[in-house]
């Protein structure tokens, strides 16, 4: 693996690619892949015919063409074949934390690279937005190999630093996105929750489909330290000296409340929320989620 493509983890991509192939057999060709098109039923433009194959939705059969030529054709629509996606990656200092082989930022960047690879391989335009307190890098969606190279280069160049204000970033970005799309947010969500939920609501009102991958280190969920610890705020200057053993249970409860709040709000806004621990195998976690999403979309159709 070359250095510039270190986030294209072949193991991860191999697992996703196999899932992708399975999804293509269901939906056909390069349309939508695993994803349900967010534009289905809105302003679809006719694009092309293709021959019917078993398993296709009979509602899309062109009866007129059947009458004229006595052959079965399926109508394809422009928007349905292209899923526009913007991948948002949190590059704030809090993403720097990590106790295992991958810190949160490396894990999240690998996830973003994997998704970009998958989308572009499916010919779905994918863009990238890197943000901390504001979004500082923005690549418009494109479905070319050159775009994938640009995304990977941007990920390589990114360094986790600065404070987070995800809510503000979402508000700004929402105004800049003209067309509906899939917005994938990869972050630890350690930000002001009220502002975050406002931003997510705006995305929902604009008709964007939002997907959140919340990346956390196991330490942040379990507080496993045995010694006394001088905690220093990774995004600020505040310091706190404490014996974690004395309040571990209370901390775990506080984190559970936080996660539950995020999960409930996302559920209300019909946003997929996926919690990913950095000690989890990324390929397994991602393919499991995409598989579930694929089954859910199949049922919805």
């Amino acid at each position, binding site marked *: 693996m070359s250095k510039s493509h270190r986030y294209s983890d072949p193991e991860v991509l191999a697992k996703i690619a196999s899932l992708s192939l399975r999804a293509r057999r269901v939906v056909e060709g390069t349309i939508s892949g695993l994803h349900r098109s967010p534009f289905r039923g809105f302003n679809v433009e006719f694009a092309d015919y293709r021959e019917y194959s078993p398993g296709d939705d009979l509602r899309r059969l062109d009866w007129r063409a059947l009458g004229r030529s006595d052959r079965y054709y399926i109508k394809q629509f422009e928007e349905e074949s292209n899923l526009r996606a913007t991948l948002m990656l949190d590059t704030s*200092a*809090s*993403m*720097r*934390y990590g106790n295992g082989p991958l810190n*949160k930022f490396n894990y999240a960047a690998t996830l973003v690279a994997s998704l970009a690879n998958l989308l572009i391989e499916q010919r779905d335009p994918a863009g990238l937005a890197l943000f901390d307190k504001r979004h500082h890098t923005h690549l418009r969606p494109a479905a070319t190999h050159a775009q994938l190279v640009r995304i990977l280069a941007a990920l390589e160049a990114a360094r986790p630093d600065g404070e987070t204000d995800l809510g503000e970033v979402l508000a700004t970005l929402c105004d800049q996105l003209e067309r509906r799309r899939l917005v994938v947010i990869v972050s*630890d969500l*350690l930000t002001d929750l009220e502002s975050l939920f406002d931003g997510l609501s705006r995305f929902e009102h604009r008709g964007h489909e939002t997907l959140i991958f919340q990346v956390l280190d196991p330490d*942040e969920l379990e*507080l496993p*330290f045995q*010694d*006394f*610890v*001088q*905690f*220093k*705020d*990774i*995004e*600020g200057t*505040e310091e*706190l*000296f*404490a*014996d974690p053993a*004395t*309040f571990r249970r*209370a*901390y775990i*409860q*506080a*984190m559970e409340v*936080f996660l539950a709040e995020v999960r409930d709000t996302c559920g209300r806004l019909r946003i997929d929320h996926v919690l990913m621990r950095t000690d989890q195998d990324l390929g397994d976690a991602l393919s499991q989620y995409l598989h579930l999403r694929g089954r859910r979309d199949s049922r919805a159709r």
Partner: protein
Amino acid sequence: MSALSFLGAPWLWGLALVSIPVIIHLLFRRRFRRVEWAPMRYLKLAIERHRRRIRLEQLLLLLLRMAVIAMLFLALARPLMHAHGWGSWLGGSLRGSQLVILDDSLSMGYIVDGRSALDRAKTLASSLFESFGPKDRLSLVLASKPEQPLLREVVRVSSEEVRLLIDGIEPTGVFVSWLSTLQALDGLVSSGVYPLREVTLITDLRGVGWSDELADLASGWTGQNVNVRIMDVGSRDSFNVTLEDFKLVDRLTLVNTPTRIEAHVHNTTGQEIGETDAELIVDGKASTVRLPVLPPGDVTRVPLYVTLGEAGDHRLSLKLPDDAMDGDNQRWLIVHAKERMNVVLVDGEPSADPLGGEADFLALALSTGFGQGDGFHIGIATDTEWDTVLASDADLIALTNVT
């Protein structure tokens, strides 16, 4: 007189170690790691919400750890609580009858670290008497002589007197039957004039001498509200070799003839003891005998042969090498040696001819003797001379053809 005294007061110095948890706590605070932390908000939330509970828990945990250490050393110091002492705290002044029974049996001579169990018992008894109240009636009895108390229901005896009395106690070579001892003291205990009666038994708690019947006696005392305490001054380990028996095997000892003696040597240590020399003393003259290897826990029978040169009583003794308890290393034996064995052959059908009767053949067989002596002195009598035969000092009477 305080309500609480300690038999092992030096252990109280260990109470200084209660500071260890505090020191560890402070040391641990100096050893910490630095972590750049992202979910600071939830960390602070957890700490602030539970700050009081956390502090209380930490304080209780610290106190608990300190209490465990304090309890350990207080237990090792063997506190002694006195009912009259507590009574004085409550404003009253209770009087009590205090009976101290001191075990002076053979096993109390067992020495560990240069001090015998009896030495420890004496020290303990002295401390105990110092702790009694000035109005208590005090009795001191040796387990071997329960009928002759050293002190009997005395009041206001000085510490110096008691100390001299106790210092004069020496270990005896006897085994104590606790049932007999305590039964003998039952009257003394029951006749105590004060409602508060305490019996303190200072012993090494060796298994010998304790029987099930003691339970009935103890129940009776409990019914009379007598407090019984047993103070153990024994040692858990045993490094002792005991000469359990030293006896004559042969029924008859003749001069200048080897006589068989047997010694039973019990190795109570947990390890094998190699060949050692013991001292066999015959009429004050010592000689060395080699003991075989003594397996751990076993009784080894050691055969010995002694040849005595003169008729009469002889004093024999076997002495094992010195060990932790010398009292059971030596045993004595009195052996009576005879010039020859007097045998009377009673013939019911005597014959005038040589070798005409059965007794004649027996007399001939016995006349060969053995060893360096003549062996047997043989006399022949008829059954009509029975009375004479019985009156003689015959060692063996053989009856032949007597109906």
